[in-house]
């Protein structure tokens, strides 16, 4: 047992800190610090700066741009990025479809897609959830019927995050309607400019347009766009959802957002007085800091014990508690904004501080965190079943 990082890891941390605080354009980090949405161009620029330095997709195989880093180094990379106010590489590209193509795709698919995916020249969307297939993903009904050297796709996907920017969409489609539900699913890559594919925005409670519905009406997809084998898509999806244990919990961004909240509170009282003089608020912040510490240390335990490559059962703790705390910090921000919290539409000429204007939209927006990626109830089910052996 030892607290200190090795000299090598300290040097690595310094290198990452230096990179993220000096090489990512300031306007991008400022937008994140202001808790405002990044534009498509900002997201692309941020990832391309990382890719140019060779650190956008460290989790990929080395031959496709990955890094031979330890899990701890990847954890440090991810934490330093968030602490510096840098958005992690687009998850659909870097954590989802990229690793799946690298692991299961043909050589031709790899060459065709991986370099452009790492550089965000192709923006990927995720086509998994459907109106009747949310937490119960395997009940999906979108079909792909083989006709010659094409698949004909019909159905609907939903909750497609940032699908309005998407160039391509990776989908789970039913290729064998007779098989039991997990067995008849395939992993298919679809060009979003294909005839018959339409994207419709879903407005959310925060007023934003972040997710979409995607409709497939006899969309013809070349059979070569199938990843791996037909009817093995569920295995690839499980790999996609389960192979990542670094960055499961957004520790660094919650720490940064909480630190900013504390700073804001120092002058947010009447006449510029400190709200931290309120012992209830001070205790709430201190407890959040302590809970984030426990979460960060748990994440470190998970990455430090991940040599065998299997998902660590405590990953579910990270997703569950990570989103609980992420949401708690967004809630704290609304409390700090107080009466100013209503001023979400304020523009020039308003006296309301910018961070008070974004507090409530973020709070409402982040209700999503405990729903996506396996809802927190699904995580409890995994903990109870897989770890504690409580199977109903």
């Amino acid at each position, binding site marked *: *047992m030892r607290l200190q990082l090795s000299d090598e890891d300290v040097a690595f941390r310094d290198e990452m800190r230096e990179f993220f605080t000096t090489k990512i354009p300031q306007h991008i980090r400022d937008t994140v610090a202001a808790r405002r949405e990044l534009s498509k161009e900002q997201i692309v620029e941020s990832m391309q700066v990382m890719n140019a330095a060779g650190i956008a997709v460290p989790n990929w195989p080395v031959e496709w741009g990955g890094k031979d880093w330890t899990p701890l180094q990847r954890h440090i990379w991810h934490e330093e990025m968030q602490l510096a106010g840098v958005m992690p590489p687009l998850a659909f590209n870097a954590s989802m479809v990229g690793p799946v193509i690298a692991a299961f795709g043909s050589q031709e698919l790899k060459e065709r897609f991986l370099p452009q995916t790492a550089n965000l020249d192709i923006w990927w969307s995720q086509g998994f959830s459907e109106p009747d297939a949310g937490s119960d993903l395997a009940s999906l009904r979108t079909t792909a019927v083989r006709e010659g050297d094409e698949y004909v796709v019909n159905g609907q996907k939903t909750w497609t995050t940032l699908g309005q920017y998407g160039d391509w969409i990776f989908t789970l489609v039913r290729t064998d309607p007779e098989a039991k539900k997990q067995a008849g699913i395939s992993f298919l890559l679809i060009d979003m400019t294909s005839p018959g594919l339409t994207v419709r925005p879903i407005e959310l409670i925060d007023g934003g347009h972040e997710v979409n519905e995607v409709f497939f009406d006899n969309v013809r997809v070349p059979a070569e766009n199938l990843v791996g084998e037909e009817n093995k898509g569920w295995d690839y999806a499980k790999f996609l959802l389960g192979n990542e244990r670094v960055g499961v919990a957004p520790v660094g961004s919650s*720490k940064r957002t909480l630190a900013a909240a504390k700073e804001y509170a120092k002058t947010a009282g009447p006449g510029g007085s400190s709200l931290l003089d309120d*012992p209830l608020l001070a205790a709430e912040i*201190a407890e959040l800091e302590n809970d984030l*510490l426990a979460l960060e240390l*748990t994440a470190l335990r998970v990455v*430090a014990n991940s040599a065998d490559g299997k998902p660590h059962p405590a990953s579910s703790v990270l997703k569950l*508690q990570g989103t609980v705390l992420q949401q708690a910090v967004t809630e704290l921000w609304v409390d700090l904004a107080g009466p100013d919290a209503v001023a979400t539409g304020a523009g020039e000429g308003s006296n309301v501080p910018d961070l008070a204007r974004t507090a409530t939209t973020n709070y409402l927006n982040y209700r999503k965190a405990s729903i996506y990626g396996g809802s927190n109830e699904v995580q409890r089910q995994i903990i*109870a079943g897989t770890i504690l052996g*409580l199977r109903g």
Partner: protein
Amino acid sequence: MDFTLDSEQTALRDAVRGLLGKAYGSSETRREITKTDPGWDEKTWQRLAEMGALGLPFAEEDGGFGAGPVEVSIVAEEIGRVIAPEPYVEAIVLAGSLVAAAGTAEQRAEIIGALAEGQLVPAFAHTEPGSRYSESATGVTASGSGSDWTLTGVKEPVLGGARADVLVVSAAVDGGTGLFLVQGDAAGLTRTSYATFDGGRAAHVAFDGTPATPLGEAGVDQSAAIAQAIAAAQIAYGHEALGAMAFALETTTDYLKSRKQFGVPLMTFQALTFRAADMYVSLELARSTVTWATLVLLDGSDEADVLEAASRAKLQVSKAGRHIGKEAIQLHGGIGMTAEYSVGHYMSRLTAIDHALGDGRHHLAALSSALDGHDVVEPLP
């Protein structure tokens, strides 16, 4: 950064687990032993001594075994797994550490070796009526000079105070809070023992011109040594609580698997299994923080860091202990309320640990008042 035990540490854990598992294999044994004074088993204490467990944190030149906080944490966690009533944290980590930190070479030679061999059991007499979690002494005052001192006043509750062969006593001196040794048979010492709700013993300890020997230099303020010893004990209590919480959760999940109602195992009901999942979350979060605090103590380069880490661990353990203790009983139902069944005793012990050396609210208040000192909390140096 490494959170895993090495092979020697794993062997120590297995040995202590074997010993205590045998000694407290059934909860009935513990009930019997805690019924009569001193509330713990002298033979088990001797076996722990023979294994080397009692001398772990002390320097070899003082008669200890030169191990450290990690080894102590391993023993404490195993104590917690069976809620062994032996005063490991109280005698070794708290009273023993004070002697090791503040005592003269002669005092260390006299006490540490005998403590490690199980021949002498000390207790720290510190808490005073109405003083809550203060780390200073005001109610017991010391007067004298050189090596010739007397103490007057009352300490209560003093854990293990009546059985102790020697008391390490905090007392008000001119410069602050000093430390003194009082022999169990000293004149003017009155000890009244009583049972505590968790099966332990505490005492009302009255000093009336009782002869005392300064621990270390006479009449000087020992607040820093007291604070460090308390922090080490807070962290060790955290490990004891981890052992207790882990067992309480295991017992609860076993019960959910085996107990049938409405013709099906209780684990059929998601309302119950989700609560067990939340108990696991609490346990793992507490485990992370407490283990980290032990590593901060092991690093030991900054005394203020150790105090802060101990507060952080104590806060997390307080929350987790209350959560797991209460849920363990509720998920069992009526059987969890009975003295015959083990799980209720675990909640009792967790409650006692919570309120020893500062409960969660106390430590949260300390952390709240120090919010300004940092931007974010950085766990690694």
